[in-house]
């Protein structure tokens, strides 16, 4: 069983969290912090397994993670999962993201957390691996996106048209552009 899937960046900012067991929000944040603390201090050339210990679950659980450019993908699993298998799964998941977002970068995850969730839902369900075939995952995700489009999407055309207008009135807009460009490095999750 997979107990939790966490994605955060090099600074520990969560980009996606998915717990398959209930934790209160503050506990979730604490787990993210501690996991980040554990993972971030490890070199890139050490092994990808970590004993989470008291963090979640106890001694039967392991943290299995991969580090891509600016993002950490951390899976917390118990001993029924194969360690190397989960590493492969993370790779499959990231490659799927890459296909769905076309050269995925951290920004995609930041602004489309919901979509990343929908993709993840096709890979892991309720803590168990649902599908490992990338083509199948992508096909299902796309079919659902198409359905959403046929329904007009969430925001709908009129709102989108107006959003440009409404942005013009906002005083923050110049700041918005500047800070956005300086602070956000656009990383490519390179080695695929």
């Amino acid at each position, binding site marked *: *069983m997979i107990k939790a899937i966490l994605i955060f960046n090099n600074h520990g900012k969560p980009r996606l969290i998915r717990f398959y067991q209930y934790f209160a929000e503050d506990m979730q944040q604490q787990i993210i912090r501690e996991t980040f603390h554990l993972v971030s201090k490890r070199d890139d050339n050490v092994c990808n397994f970590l004993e989470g210990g008291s963090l979640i679950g106890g001694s039967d659980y392991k943290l299995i993670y991969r580090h891509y450019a600016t993002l950490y993908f951390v899976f917390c699993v118990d001993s029924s999962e*194969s360690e*190397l298998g989960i590493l492969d799964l993370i790779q499959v998941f990231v490659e799927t993201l890459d296909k769905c977002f076309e050269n995925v970068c951290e920004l995609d995850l930041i602004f489309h957390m919901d979509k990343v969730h929908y993709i993840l839902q096709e890979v892991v369900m309720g803590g168990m691996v649902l599908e490992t075939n990338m083509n199948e995952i992508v096909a299902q995700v796309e079919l659902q996106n198409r359905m959403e489009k046929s329904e007009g999407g969430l925001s709908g055309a009129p709102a989108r048209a107006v959003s440009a207008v409404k942005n013009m009135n906002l005083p923050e807009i110049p700041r918005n552009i500047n800070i956005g460009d300086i602070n956000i490095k656009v990383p490519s999750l390179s080695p695929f």
Partner: protein
Amino acid sequence: MALKIVKGSIDRMFDKNLQDLVRGIRNHKEDEAKYISTCIDEIKQELKQDNIAVKANAVCKLTYLQMLGYDVSWAAFNIVEVMSSSKFTFKRIGYLAASQCFHEGTDVIMLTTNQIRKDLSSPNQYDTGVALTGLSCFVTPDLARDLANDIMTLMSHTKPYIRKKAVLIMYKVFLKYPESLRPAFPRLKEKLEDPDPGVQSAAVNVICELARRNPKNYLSLAPLFFKLMTSSTNNWVLIKIIKLFGALTPLEPRLGKKLIEPLTNLIHSTSAMSLLYECVNTVIAVLISLSSGMPNHSASIQLCVQKLRILIEDSDQNLKYLGLLAMSKILKTHPKSVQSHKDLILQCLDDKDESIRLRALDLLYGMVSKKNLMEIVKKLMLHVDKAEGTTYRDELLTKIIDICSQSNYQYITNFEWYISILVELTRLEGTRHGHLIASQMLDVAIRVKAIRGFAVAQMATLLDNAHLLTGNTQRNGICEVLYAAAWICGEFSEHLEDPMQTLEAMLRPKVATLPGHIQAVYVQNAAKLFATVLQKHEGETDSQAAQETSQLLIDRLPLFVQSANLEVQERASCILQLVKYIQKLQQKNVEVAEEVTALFAGELNPVAPKAQKKVPIPEGLDLDAWINEPPSESESEDEKPKAVFAKEEPKHYRSRNTEVDEKELARRREVRKQEQANNPFYIKASPSSQKVYDAPGVEHIPVVQIDLSVPLKVPGMPMSDQYLKLEEERQQKEKAERKKKEKKKKREKRGKGRKADSGPESEEDITPAQHVDIVTEEMPENALPSDDDDKDPNDPHRALDIDLDNLLSGFSSRPLADSEKLPVRTHRPEVLKSPAEDRVSESVPPETKKKSSKEKKEKKKDKEKDRKRSKEEKKKKKKHKEVEEELLESQPEEPVQSEETKEAAAPPTSTSAEASDLDFWLSSAPVPPAAQEVTVPSSAVETSSAAVPESEPDEPKDTEPEDTKSSKHKKKKQKKEKEEKEKKKKKRHHHHHHHGEAGGEDSVQNGTVEEEEPLPPMSNYSVLAENSFIKMVYDIQGNHQDESKVVVSIIFENKSDSFLKSMEFNVLDSLNSKLQRPEGAGPHDGLTVPFQLPPGVSNEARFVFSVQSIVMPQKLKGTLTFIVKSDESSTHEKLDFKLHFTCTSYLITTPCYSDAYAKLLESGDLKGSSLRLEGINMPFHHLLARICFHHHFSVVERIDSCASMYSRSIQGHHVCLLVKTSDQTVSIDAKCDEPSLLGNVLDELKQTFSKC
């Protein structure tokens, strides 16, 4: 209305969407919290609008905020609203939000049941998919119970996408609602052979998860998994299966033998490292399990270890890690083979990667010997100094202690060294394991008598330097060791060099800053020291010094009397008064030392950790029973005292509650454990495997002789390194001496002798520095052996330990009882009802009925489509038919478990083949006879008698004569099985048309109705008595062990809504049959039923009867008396019944082999009788199944419409039947060595069949 919509969409223009929110948050880095709180206000406004799109947008944003740690549970209701939107876009958002923030405590979850059900049956597969995904995250026991049936239906959905999701979610359903496992399992098993690889993988996944916790129940699936393993190419599936086999092999060594070959093939053929690693892992598990049953697999183990060495030496850190991990598995059973790689493992201790170091540490545990312990620990101590993070350092600390204390300090040759190590460890700052060190100190000081002198000296130094330990931080965990130090110094104060100095150290004002429980020990032990000092001074007749000592205590103790800690305060004031009194006596020149010392006389012995638990409960002690009846509610209400200051916690009234809060109990237990751990009188022993239970008296404990080559006192803080050098010197000296002695001998047999010497040093070579005596822990005299106390009662998987073999094999097994059906859709289930009751009170409301009939129509359409297609594809047809069958089953009117019961009632001859399939499959390999017992599934008592023939392991082939011929041709047999299965499928399918017809919905499709009809669910339980309060059903079973006893199992079901208690069961004994009563009870006393029944609950009790003659059926009159307790009143009720002991109930299902059967008939000892039954229109195999089930017979042989059957009575009478059928007439020729018994059995047989 139109205006409203327009207004809504204008509002929407100014709403932020998720992207806007994210952007906004990124732009307000300085005042993020403030910005978000305004956003939340906006969201709240948006949620108030009617427009569902606005709401969905708001919920989407909330999901994002939840990730950032904001509690969004206040919007739970809005999330439900969005979930129930008809648009997929919104629904998906709703379910996503729900899956992120709903949990069992979310109260709106119960509103979702019908919505989810609707979505599950939606024609759009993605609606269903989204609902399944969401549900998998927040399923609750209620949802699981209500939706289990719907999900089960989806397991046979036409779309693989839905099937695989439905299969996966079943695991979650099982966890929350274990009752669903048995009814759902056959279908789950079918999915293992689903044509879609995704579905197959999901089913493997679920079964592996289930089997991991309760492997024995899934052993019978091994052949199926084996087939999958050899045929599948999906690595994911393979990994899971191989992992599963790893869990199964310890239960069945024969399985391991079969596995070795395909696994080695896989190792050679696969390129996937993950698969290869799992294969190696399972091979290790196999070898481990084999080695326990068979000699000499050391070569294969060696091979595995070699392979792992290659992994560990690999440059890939991941492989290195996994290699070490697998190595530790071998370590448990084959420590020797791992020990030879000590160099490599010690090398890994220096790895830069913490994970790898930790794994290497684990391995060290098995590496140590008497010789290298000191060396290894020294190395670890170096690491402790270097370690940067506290977690790794703490881990090192626990490992050092583990390694040293393992197997009752087996490897420690010098305890002075160990004490020094412990003292050195106290210098660690900020460790959490102070209590661990403390408990070790206590343990060693108490159990190794010889070391006490040294230990006390060290502890005194520790106390003297306490300021170094307590250091700066208050919360420092290390100060726990002061607890141990103070206690040791006090308890063994006679060893102290200068007790006065220690006493002073213990009474320093700084002590008051220590935690309360430590202060308490300080105070108590100061008193002990005081006694010692007094005695010393009086011995020297130095009354001046003695009085000074008293004065010191009188001066210092008031500090503790003021302590905020109650314990400290109490002890201090007691002792203060005592000392004051002593001072008075001293001033009168009275000698008091002896009396004061007497206060602390006597030695404390260690007590085994589980000793308390193992004290048998004295007879007649019932802690649950009321001593005095609790006052009724109204009374206590009146007496409730008025709160004086504030509301008092209603703790005093807790006893009123019949069920004390579980949590509270657990908390109390925890507190008690904590207390015990901290209390020196409960001494926790090291986890020792070799306990010697010869509990000697204190006098007999041999006193350790101390080797004088070791200096007794080391001034100041001890350095463990000194011991290392000393030890080396000592060993060298010894060796030299030995060598001198043995030189001559060696010369003589040099050739052989060398080899032994160069190998790992043998333990015998090392003589310990001290003769160590470990005082064993004391156990109560009549301790009960019980080792199952480690299981966690809260583990949800315990509930899933359900015997599934019976279900699978079907033959003479426990069919799904009525109470096991999945509840069919009910309108609004009441929250606290048990599923069994649900069914009773179930009335399908018209609304759902309509819905279901609508669905039926849709399904009918589907079916017709299917049928057209079926002409083209014959194979597919079967599958679709199955689907139909599931669909039909979901109709509320139809019993859900019909399919399962059919399976249970299937012909015995064909299913028995399946039952012993595992044995057969495995028996193609040579079988170690001892191992066979393992295969017998331990089934519940109530099924055991029925399950006997299949679980009889001796010669499985004989029970299935058809298969004996083909026993060597495995493939042939498999084919046969397949055919049988297909046949069954066909039959099932026909049957369903039949049912559809009965429902009046479907026209007759196939023209002919199969003559095979399903049996109704069979149960041996018959009604004993019933009134408006209680219902009793009973079953009587004999037992092999005792020829004069039968067990009557009675299920009591509380039908009222009151509480039933004090049930007393009594029977008027006859000359022949007597109720077994406990010793001391009179012949007319009733037996108390050992439980009480809350409303709607049923429970089973067993009563043993002794019988003398079993040839005649008997009836016994009896009465059940009980108290009905409702809120207002309690009344005494009674219920009369008649227990009917049939002759059948004295029969025990016993398998018999055809040759033994023939001999028996030939012997001529048996007398014959016969019986004809007319107008029996049931299929022959059903007839046989009935005889087997109701009358405890087993089939010996069956040829066409003729079968021979056998059974045995508890007193060893043989009963043989020859059953023939032709044209609705059944003739039974019977033989038995007791004619009257036979006559009665035949009468009962006749009765059984006249009922149907």
